[in-house]
């Protein structure tokens, strides 16, 4: 087991390195650079050249990348090209915002999704099962901004119950901050719950047709116990995987929700930085996004191994 985790961690580091190279190369391949984007379309070529030199954009690519990765290894994410501010200082509040929203949404949606999924599987073919399936498909089919606008229309414009601006400011009390986050958490939960719930239901049902489940029934074990004791642990691996994918999505893929609810997280920060070709900022965001993916995948794989004794033996350790 230890060896398995160590190998995966090492592979994760290699992946992370590849991601930083890719992000760096890709951002540099985009037309224009920070100098042209900051100075705008009215700038003269001489001004752009001077600014480029000031920003150090004339250095060869390899050198610039080397400087950046050297800084990263020393815990320094570098300096933003556009604001000249230290990225270490500006990225933490953004990262914390993103993690807080993702965490809160996970807290609401994961138990909900698994609970409803188990319920659906237990009552397969019932009215409840069909109603949940319908609701899930509807929630998945709506684009996220539509769900978000609908929530805003009902809860902030019509009922005036909740704020549609979800930015958290330091002077807010805990309750105020929680209230501000209700709408984005609702919108995101709608999206991810449906997916995880359907996966839970499907995996449990596929296990339900196995002979050992039939055996359990024949023994006289009640249906609820068969599902929770016998089926769920064996169906856990795909459920854990889909939960991990959804959590990763909550960290990296919610720019639209951030924009609609004015919730300044890492996504919007990265999009702005790409627009201005602020490469160090894009790189920093890229590293955190890659970390989220790699980390969550690792955790989900390890968990899948832990809940399934057969896998545990095969990986050794």
């Amino acid at each position, binding site marked *: 087991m230890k060896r398995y985790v160590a190998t995966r961690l090492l592979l994760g580091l290699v992946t992370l390195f590849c991601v930083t190279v890719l992000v760096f190369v890709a951002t540099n391949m*985009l037309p224009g650079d920070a100098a042209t984007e900051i100075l*705008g379309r009215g700038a003269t070529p001489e001004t752009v050249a001077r600014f480029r030199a000031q920003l150090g954009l004339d250095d060869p690519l390899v050198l610039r990348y080397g400087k950046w990765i050297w800084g990263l290894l020393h815990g320094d994410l570098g300096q933003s090209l556009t604001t000249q501010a230290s990225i270490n200082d500006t990225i933490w509040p953004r990262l914390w915002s993103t993690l807080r929203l993702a965490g809160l949404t996970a807290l609401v949606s994961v138990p909900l999704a698994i609970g409803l999924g188990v319920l659906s599987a237990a009552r397969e073919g019932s009215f409840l099962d069909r109603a949940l399936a319908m609701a899930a498909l509807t929630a998945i089919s709506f684009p996220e901004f539509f769900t978000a606008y609908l929530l805003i229309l009902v809860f902030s414009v019509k009922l005036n119950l909740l704020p*549609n601006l979800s930015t958290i400011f330091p002077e807010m009390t805990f309750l105020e901050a929680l209230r501000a986050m209700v709408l984005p958490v609702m919108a995101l939960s709608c999206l991810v719950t449906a997916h995880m719930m359907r996966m839970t239901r499907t995996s449990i049902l596929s296990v339900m047709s196995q002979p050992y489940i039939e055996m359990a029934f024949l023994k006289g074990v009640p249906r609820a116990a068969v599902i929770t004791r016998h089926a769920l642990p064996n169906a856990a691996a795909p459920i854990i995987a889909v939960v991990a994918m959804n959590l990763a999505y909550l960290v990296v893929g919610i720019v639209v929700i951030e924009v609609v609810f004015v919730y300044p997280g890492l996504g919007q920060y990265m999009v702005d930085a790409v627009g201005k070709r602020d490469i160090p900022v894009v790189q920093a965001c890229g590293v955190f996004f890659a970390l989220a993916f790699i980390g969550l995948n690792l955790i989900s794989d390890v968990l899948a191994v832990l809940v399934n004794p057969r896998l545990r033996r095969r990986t050794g350790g």
Partner: protein
Amino acid sequence: MNDAKTDARRGHLSRRSFLGTAAATATVTAGGLWLPRAAHADTPKKGGTLRLGMEGGTSTDSFNPMTLSDELPIALCYCIMNGLIEFDAEGLPQPELFESWEIEPGAVKWVFKIRQGIAFSNGKTLTVEDVIYSINLHRGESVSQLKGNLEPITEITKLSDSQIAITLNEGNADFVALLGDYHLLVVPEGHTDWTKPIGTGAYVLESFEPGVRAVFTARGDYWKPGRGNFDRVEVLYIPDAVARTSALQSGQIDGANRLDPRTVDFLAQAPNLNVVRGEGTGLRYVFCARVSDDPYTNQNAVLALKYGIDRQKIIDNVLNGYATLGNDHTINPNSPFFNAELPQRPYDPDKAAWHLKEAGLTGSEFRLTVSEGAWVTMPDCAQIFQQSLDPAGIKLELNKVPADGYWSNVWRVDPFCGVIWASRMTADENLTVCYSSTSPMNDSNWKNEAFDKLLTEARVELDQGKRKEIYATCQQMVSDEAGHVLFAINDTLDGYGKNVMGVNKHPRFGFDDLRVAEKAWFA
């Protein structure tokens, strides 16, 4: 902090009762300007927290005056700093930190008097040296976007402790308006740390998180009487139009800029809101054909496009009527130099077909590069353009490209593409930047010596009547010959809570020239 908030809320409530009558007297015209007339007569009151929600900024914004390029950071700078010149509601230059000025005949040498006894937020008194330093930030080895505009300055000299002289390489009667540019903000001599802005404005910075929020507090005793009335100003970054309007409707903010023209009618009906509309002062929407490239080298080909565009239909369908017809040149109808004699070019497919035939073209030679990078609704506008050209026998091909990198990839590269031109304060700047032979921004690449000569003549002509004549000829030439199919000039649309007083439309920017924090007050 919390006290200020409650105060604002209290003010909001007590105002409700007053508003019953105010709303009844408010002038509501069809798609017009909704402003209670009484609001202007009120004397400014102090106090409260003004919360603004704005589009036009990113998390890469700073207080560096040299790199200002969108409305939000400009509005932030105006909270802290002053300019040399301020534009009034008619768009005419008025004294700000320059108290007065004299022009010597020929408009080559200008003498400016600097306002005395003004203190910076760090306690330092404003001197001639500060002003010279602030102008020079944009000259010489500078990376300023304004550098090109200030190139005509050959010398700035200190005449006394309150006067400077500026010499130009050629006469320019509009030079003072050039100094009203939003980049020209006054900072103390030697100041370079743009994360700690210092200025002579009404407020000081309390906190700033680019892309999230900026908070300002009043300095007290602002040198402009009746201005800088709020205790505290919060500017929130709200890039999404729906989020902005929802926040305004539910009272989470007191003002929102760049309202969506497609939903502004509904907002105007809300009893707790005011909508301020600046007619035809916004962006000029242009399909730009480069006349040095085929088939646009033939003037008839360009005229076919100009007659073949249904301007009114685009304005009605895409901009919901919130725009003024464009007449293929960048001077807007509010300008004192606007050529009203020049007939508005109509939609005339027959005439377009005739010009196409004159040009000896079949009608399938035209290819327009379309992108949301030019302006968000450009694809919609281009589709109507395509349809309206059809009866003239012109099959316009639309080539859709991504928004990212539009200004470096497409504009001035593709022979036929979209461009927006912002409002510029003088006829000279409008025409020189967009159409003079030597301007790097002359995107339709139209070059005409006679036109250049007229511009130079007008620049030194101090008789306004004669200047108007010259500019009228210039507009005629551009409209007929240059490559701009300039079909509309949009309106600025701002929304405010009913308790926000003293806000007006302005010919340069929305949000009362982005100085709403300085000019407004709570009822």
